[in-house]
């Protein structure tokens, strides 16, 4: 199903982009971002409401049916010769919503069916299937668009979603999973969950850059290609290249990163790629500053910078980011997870897209050159880099806070992640755990901290002793006695 969705989205995107650039123009992209954000917020609320009422299978079926209906309507109108901007805006929003909601729903199904231990193996493969679908879609578009025209490939997307609908009937009842996180505790408020808070904050600037890069990409190809067929063929070719890179990245890079760096650090890759992409776009924007109005098409080697930026975004979003984020969510309780997904995908993502649209409109209103837009993206890129540094410690904090001590696999995964940290990093993390009101988390921290006891740890413990729960403090002192830590040290904590 993920394969078919990937295929459908890729095929319809080539038609969507070409129709928009041909009938409206790249200069109205900021406005369509804002419109898309508004539609997305409405649809997200509806989606969340329906998701609470019906099982995931039914939700997936409904989403696919709506997708087929929306794409079919747009195609019929295009074939009927309608060239209105409203249709271009509608097609843009419909395709983008397919891109957001269909994978979101299928990932939620996958999260229900696979345990946290299986997730590290299965989720990258599922993401790879999505990329293969995109690759197939891009290759089909590229070969047929010259023959049937750029918009007659939309029925192919409908067929793909239809096949998906058929396969979806086989979705059964999800098995009961041994949770990585304890189910006996009451979940914390959403934004009190460190990982959720970080992913939520991060989403805003991250997708803002992604959409600024998208804007620069479309503006640039709008300058390079004038004919609809050429443009559509180029978009498909670029899609093929991105999809091949994505598949390779998913099969080779993602598992390697998981093994070498751990999940938490791998989550840094996509934000770093966006920051790099913003800088690459800046190179083209600087050239654009020298370019006069009505000049010939820009040289291809400069266009390559924008293509590289866009390529980094697409390739790593669909491979490393998708897999990593889905695994990260296992660190929070299931109930929190569903709400967190809705918050990030349903609220922060459209807010970010809308904000990027408004920002671009503001730059356009004040007649700001492209390099000023690119510089802003570069600055936001570094903000993203900084914010993403919190993902790993917050992931570990969530694992520590929600970890079920009876699940030995989960505990091993946690210890493996902690072993990748420096002594100081793990201390900061464990000292925080020591101050929580969750006793087993604090007890775990006591044992791990005392494994590396020294005078500096004593200083740190002295600083936070007032914030440690009395029962935890008693356990800490007892553990110090067991480990024969000198009495004068223990007295300093009394």
């Amino acid at each position, binding site marked *: 199903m993920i394969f078919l969705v990937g295929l459908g989205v890729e095929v319809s995107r080539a038609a969507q982009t070409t129709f928009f650039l041909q009938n409206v123009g790249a200069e109205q992209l900021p406005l369509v971002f804002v419109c898309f954000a508004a539609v997305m917020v409405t649809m997200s609320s509806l989606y969340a409401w329906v998701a609470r009422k019906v099982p995931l299978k039914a939700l997936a079926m409904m989403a696919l049916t709506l997708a087929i209906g929306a794409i079919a309507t747009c195609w019929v109108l295009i074939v009927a010769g309608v060239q209105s901007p409203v249709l271009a805006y509608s097609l843009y929003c419909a395709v983008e919503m397919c891109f957001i909601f269909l994978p979101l729903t299928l990932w939620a199904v996958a999260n229900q069916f696979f345990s946290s231990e299986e997730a590290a193996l299965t989720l990258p493969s599922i993401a790879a299937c999505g990329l293969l679908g995109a690759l197939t879609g891009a290759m089909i578009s590229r070969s047929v668009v010259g023959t049937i025209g750029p918009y007659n490939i939309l029925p192919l997307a409908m067929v793909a979603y239809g096949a998906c609908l058929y396969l979806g009937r086989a979705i059964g009842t999800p098995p009961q999973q041994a949770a990585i996180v304890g189910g006996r505790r009451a979940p914390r408020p959403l934004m009190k969950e460190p990982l959720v808070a970080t992913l939520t904050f991060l989403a805003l600037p991250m997708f803002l850059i992604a959409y600024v890069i998208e804007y620069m990409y479309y503006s640039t190809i709008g300058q390079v290609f004038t004919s609809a067929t050429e443009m559509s063929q180029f978009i498909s070719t670029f899609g093929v290249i991105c999809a091949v890179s994505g598949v390779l990245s998913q099969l080779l890079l993602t598992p390697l990163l998981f093994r070498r760096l751990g999940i938490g650090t791998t989550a840094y890759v996509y934000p770093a790629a966006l920051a790099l992409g913003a800088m690459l776009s800046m190179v083209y924007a600087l050239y654009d*500053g020298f370019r006069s109005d009505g000049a010939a098409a820009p040289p291809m080697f400069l266009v390559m910078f924008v293509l590289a930026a866009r390529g980094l975004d697409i390739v790593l979003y669909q491979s490393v980011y998708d897999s990593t984020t889905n695994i990260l969510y296992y660190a929070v309780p299931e109930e929190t997870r569903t709400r967190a997904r809705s918050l990030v995908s349903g609220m922060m993502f459209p807010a970010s897209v809308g904000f990027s649209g408004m920002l671009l409109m503001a730059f356009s209103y004040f007649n700001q050159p492209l390099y000023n837009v690119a510089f802003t993206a570069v600055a936001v890129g570094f903000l993203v880099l900084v914010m993403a540094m919190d993902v790993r410690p917050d992931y570990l904090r969530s694992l520590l806070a929600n970890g079920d001590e009876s699940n030995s696999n989960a505990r091993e995964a946690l210890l493996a992640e902690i072993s990748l940290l420096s002594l100081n990093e793990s201390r900061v993390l464990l000292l925080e755990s020591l101050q929580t009101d969750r006793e087993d988390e604090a007890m775990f921290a006591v044992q791990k901290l005392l494994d590396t006891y020294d*005078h500096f740890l004593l200083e740190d413990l002295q*600083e936070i002793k007032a914030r440690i729960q009395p029962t935890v403090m008693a356990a800490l002192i007892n553990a110090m006695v067991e480990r024969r830590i000198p009495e004068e040290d223990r007295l300093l904590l009394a």
Partner: protein
Amino acid sequence: MILPTLAFLIVSLIIGLYSSRRVKGSVRNYFVAGHVIPSWVLILSLCGQALELGGTYDNTERAMLLGFWDGAILPIGIGTSLLLIGLLFAKPLHSMHLLTLPDFYVQRFNTFAGTMVAILCLFSFIILIAGNLAGMGILMELAVGLPPHITVPAIAVLIAVYTIAGGLFAVAWNDVLQSNVLFLGVAVALGILVFGGVPGVLDQAFASRFDWAPLTKLESGSVSVWASFLALAIGDIVALDFMERVFAARTAGAAQSSCYVAGLVTIGVGIAMAVIGMIGATTVVGGAEGATLVQFIATFPASVKMLFVMALLGAGISTIDGAIMASTKALSRNILQTMMPTRIPDGRLLSVSRLMVLPITIAAVVLALVFPVPGELLILAFDVVFAGCVIPLVLGIYWKRGTGRAAVLAILIPSVLRVVLYFTYESFGLDPRLKGIDTLIPPLLSLAIFVGVSLSQRAPDGVPSKSQLIGAAS
């Protein structure tokens, strides 16, 4: 240029405020970022601190007007000090888990020595902040067209707000933005000037503004150039802002390697800036009397001008926030807490430190507006630190016989001497070509005092162990 400037400042503020999540009420997190700064951030942070407006703006302008060495000696000296810190000090000092550099003097010698170092460093850093704020005023006038009396307080407030919120996390995380923008701006400006400008411009620039004489010939001011180099290369070893980053590294090895890389990058970027200045001398400005860097920047293509101004803004802000942070720590922990230990117990140190950002910022803003070209005063302030603080640090680590009394005298007497020499140098009737020797004499006196007094006292039983030192300090 208003929108990119606003974007740059707003993103800086957001980074600072966001990083406050990681302080979590801990002094160690606020002062030294919990010792968890990764190496790549540490490198950027050290570069951001080293490449202040002196090493960038002044360097470029001096190279444009006076020649390569007059400008480049500043970043080369500062970069060398980072290399020396990496080679000799990063590992031993990091392993002591210090919160501030004066803490070393407290633990190794006595509280009085630590307080004296803190006071000397505090004054020099307030002047440094003021100098950079004044430079920011000039740049902001170029960027947004507003006069310094509006932009200087505004920028100071912005920096103070995020420094109060996030401490060293805010400062170091912001260096990721500010240093990278600096590198980007310098690389683009140099690339466009060399490859996109007049053919052979680089040869002309070197022919016009590069000469080895300032390093080798007395009449070309070689003593002054070498004195500046030594004052920066050795004097900046006791720079509070460098050291707080060394302490904030994850491991001692990471602190050391980051210093090496940052030192080399600082020298590289500094030389690039000096080359830009030399090109400025040969193109539009033509070395005209009274020409300024601002006039040269005004001739850049609009996109390059925007990036270069942002680069200089980044250089200024990254230094100001680090210097505010470092002076705040010295003031609250090594001066106020030492003087009023009962009124400022450890539990209140964090809030007092945050509060102390305000008087330091206000003092620097007033100084920047009243005395916008601190030049000589800045040199004197850092000369005083060089005179008194370096020898006790070096010998405190590498010579077991050093004593507390020796340290106090070796800090006090040469510092006073340096101030006296500043005011009386002319009256000695020395050869003006030897100007700069007054910078080099006091540290030598400091060495003589420290060794002499230490040897004259009874040999101590041995250097106390680290745990004893820490116990004594607490």
